[in-house]
């Protein structure tokens, strides 16, 4: 007798099973569903009498009492780390001589502006926050549109379009402002803040503009199946 194989319908049931066990992201669902399918087929060779559900429960038990949750958490952590490695790589690649000159010029301009009138810091800070919030909101909308089109959630896509949790670090310049509104700001402090702010502008540009614009290329690398699925 030929060994039993997983049908298309059962495959869909396996995807549903991963979703039921809190695996939200398609990339991980596909990997785990394929794993379970292989394991069930192997089990059927030894025990052909088992039903699909019985075999599935026996195989799922092997994942331990936490089921898929550890795998999901570790995957999230791993891809966050990969994102920041990518940011760093991109940062080094944009750090050409003209860009260094631009950063220096920007920091120099802000330093003089702050020294002349220390409340001008508020202007730079608000410029940064307003532009970031606006762009972050646009990216969020774009991400939802993409999700609707593919009907799937991809973890790395979500990280890219939320800019690695950029919303959390966006108010950092606001924190710095505590030092800025005292009378008689020191030259040293003004210089440090200007450099930090200039770097923040570059980071903003990197994660909010440059990297989402290149999303397709990154996603293709992280998920070779990304293109496969789209054309299927």
């Amino acid at each position, binding site marked *: 007798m030929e060994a039993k*194989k997983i049908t298309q319908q059962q*495959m869909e049931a396996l995807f549903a099973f991963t979703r039921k066990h809190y695996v939200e992201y398609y990339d991980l669902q*596909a990997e*785990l569903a*394929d794993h379970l399918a292989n394991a069930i087929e192997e089990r059927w060779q030894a025990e052909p009498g088992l039903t699909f559900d019985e075999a599935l429960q026996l195989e799922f038990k092997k994942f331990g009492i936490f089921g898929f949750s550890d795998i999901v958490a*570790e*995957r999230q952590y791993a891809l966050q780390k990969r994102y920041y*490695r990518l940011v760093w790589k991109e940062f080094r690649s944009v750090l050409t001589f003209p860009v260094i000159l631009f950063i220096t010029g920007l920091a120099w301009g802000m330093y003089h502006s702050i020294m002349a009138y220390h409340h001008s810091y508020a202007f730079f800070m608000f410029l940064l926050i307003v532009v970031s919030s606006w762009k972050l909101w646009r990216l969020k909308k774009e991400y939802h549109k993409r999700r609707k089109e593919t009907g799937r959630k991809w973890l790395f896509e979500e990280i890219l379009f939320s800019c690695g949790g950029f919303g959390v670090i966006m108010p950092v310049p606001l924190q710095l402002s505590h030092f800025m509104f005292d009378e008689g700001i020191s030259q040293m402090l003004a210089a440090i803040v200007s450099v930090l702010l200039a770097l923040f502008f570059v980071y903003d540009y990197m994660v909010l503009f440059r990297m989402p614009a290149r999303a397709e290329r990154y996603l293709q690398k992280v998920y070779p199946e990304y293109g*496969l699925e789209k054309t299927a």
Partner: protein
Amino acid sequence: MKNSQLYKGSLTTILMKLLEENGRMYGYEITQKVKLITAGELNITEGALYPALHKLEAEGHLEVEVEKVDNRLRKYYKLTESGQKENVNRLAELEEFIRNMQNLVGNPKLKLG
């Protein structure tokens, strides 16, 4: 995994060595291969396998290929160039560890403790 504490630290080394020998493999295949080689003595649990693979992938030591097999998406892992280098280092480290343990534990004249 059997005697988990002893094997745990070597999991990534085992994975990389397997990938070096077999070119590319998918998760389930790895668990089966380990079972086969160790005659069922060592059983890599799914809960340990995937996080280890994903971590190696995020570190750039592994890259993935995806193919449709039996109408299912199958994700294969293989060593990158940096993974190959890392594999050599880790194997050397593991061999040294084994040698030292043999000297320490396998030497009947030496008393521990």
